[in-house]
């Protein structure tokens, strides 16, 4: 008994060692192209800002990090809470949350529809979902702009039909930004939900109906719990890029109000405050990381209960 155990333990260790060796190229890639640049950003955030952009190498300063939450008063230079920065953070988080909810509301029925097609048709439907990804993000965003602008297709059609006399102002509104973001990130929601819906055992749905559950109850107690991992994965995949979105708010929102992405860009551009820009980038990273960790923990907990 103990000999086999020892033997299997040794095999297991060897297996682990081999896997490590095999993953070396991937690890090197990650360190070189992901961790390395991040480290540079982190170092820059702790340096003194250069007078005309850049940083003063080797001069340590916490100024960048302090400016993330505090600012000097325009009147008397006293340090006060940077409400402007916080409202920019909040706008980004709020819009990312709304995008996530919007994509979920549209994406779940879409994924459900595809998952319930005959197996031979599903690939075609998935293919159709991914087609917009072939076109550059900027081009798609400009196409939306052409639809909703004052002299765009929607307004012109409505006006020629006599529904409205004056064009409806759609471009440069928060609704336009939200619509653009939902549209752009929709496939990221559909695909993971589809993946988990496909695995859902349809006999459970039938059993639900047999037990006199109505449609809503089946959805609530059978389908949704069944594809929860897919929904959570989809929400994270949408939320993360949406919080740092730059192009869509800029093109469709008219750039009157900054998002995190624009705010960071400003620091590397006319504000010439690279340390603050770096600190803001890391802050964004931390926000995303905290959410990811929360997800992983919850997932792990669920795994434990499953094992029991």
């Amino acid at each position, binding site marked *: 008994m103990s000999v086999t155990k020892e033997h299997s333990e040794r095999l297991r260790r060897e297996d682990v060692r081999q896997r490590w060796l095999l993953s070396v190229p991937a690890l090197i890639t990650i360190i070189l192209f992901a961790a390395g640049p991040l480290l540079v950003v982190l170092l820059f955030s702790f340096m003194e800002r250069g007078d*005309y952009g850049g940083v003063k190498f080797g001069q340590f300063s916490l100024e960048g990090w302090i400016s993330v939450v505090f*600012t000097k008063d*325009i*009147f008397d230079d006293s340090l006060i809470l940077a*409400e402007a920065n916080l409202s920019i953070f909040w706008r980004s988080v709020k819009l990312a949350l709304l995008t996530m909810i919007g994509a979920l509301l549209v994406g779940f029925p879409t994924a459900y529809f595809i998952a319930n097609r005959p197996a031979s048709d599903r690939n075609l439907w998935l293919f159709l979902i991914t087609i917009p990804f072939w076109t550059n993000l900027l081009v798609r965003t400009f196409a939306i702009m052409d639809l909703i602008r*004052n002299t765009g297709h929607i307004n012109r059609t409505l006006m020629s039909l006599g529904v409205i006399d004056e064009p409806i102002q759609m471009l440069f509104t928060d609704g336009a930004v939200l619509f653009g973001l939902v549209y752009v990130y929709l496939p990221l929601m559909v695909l993971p939900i589809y993946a988990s819906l496909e695995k859902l055992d349809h006999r459970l749905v039938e059993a639900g109906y047999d037990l006199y559950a109505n449609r809503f109850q089946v959805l609530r107690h059978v389908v949704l719990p069944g594809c929860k991992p897919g929904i959570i994965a989809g929400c994270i995949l949408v939320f993360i890029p949406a919080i740092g979105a730059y192009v869509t708010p800029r093109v469709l929102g008219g750039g009157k109000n900054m998002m995190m992405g624009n705010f960071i860009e*400003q620091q590397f551009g006319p504000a*010439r405050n690279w340390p603050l820009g770096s600190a803001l980038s890391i802050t964004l990273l931390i926000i995303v990381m905290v959410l990811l960790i929360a997800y992983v923990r919850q997932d792990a907990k669920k795994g434990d209960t499953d094992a029991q």
Partner: protein
Amino acid sequence: MFRKLTITTAMACAGFAGAAHAAGELNIYNWGNYTSPELIAKFSEQYDVRVTVTDYDSNDTALARVRAGGSGFDLVNPSANFIPIWINEGLVEQTNVSEMENFQYVKEEWRDPPWDPGRKYSAPWLWGTGGPVVATNYYDGDINTSAIWLDPPEELHGKINVAPEMNDVLYAAIRYMGGEWCSDDRDLMRAVLDQLLHAKQYWISMEYGLDKMDTRDWYASYYWNGAAYRARRVNADVQWGFPKEGFHIFMESMMVLADAPNPENARLFQNFIMAPENAALISNFASYQNAIEGSEEFMDPDLADAPELNIPEELAHAGGWQDICSPEVNELYTRVWTQVLR
């Protein structure tokens, strides 16, 4: 006569260049949509040089990239307010532009600018002004005032665009409030901020480009005069104003980088762009005014006389350079700007 002169000069230079640099190269780092392809083709042919143009979108981008080193560019075209930085940081080579042959054509007022005294480094490219552009079908008031976008009249509410260019917008607003550029007067900046916040509620967007003036999504915009000229070509009622409260004049000038791989060709190009015929090519493409005497002759007649490109004499005093402010003042301005865009 000018044509003859230019050709003779060019041929003289070509002979000289041919001896030193047969089939050479030249890498130009310039603003996007600012370099006339005709000009490049002409230069390539005359000097047997293969020219590559790379675009940038802001002075800060250009500065950051070149300062990082090893850019491989020969020429860069920064705005006037950035030129002292390029010079002080030792990024550009002193090519004594004022001693070049074609410098004789540079107009008197552009020969000795405060940001490059005596033109030791920079050859003039184009210049323009920042100000209001408005569709007069929807607005019939005074156009020579920043009030169009800083104190918007009711008919323009919700139809105004402002270029998201921190320094330009603040310059106009500070002058509008009676201050001087680079001032660190806190009361003034508080007033500027209040004015901008008041005006912002009537703006629809803060974007680059004037194409939405063409489509009537906007009735007015704070922008730059060359683009306003192009907008008028689409809608004849679009007019440009030179604000009496104050407006800034900008100018881009070509400089040779200190680490240029082809400094000889770069100097040839500096001289080349100061010839009237070539300056006209630059203007015709970008629809901004150049600084070269006699170039009008070769420019599109419509462009040479355009009201957008010629400051009326009675408003000339309101124009000013946009100096680069100290880091402290820049930080103050950034704080104001962040408040505006929060």
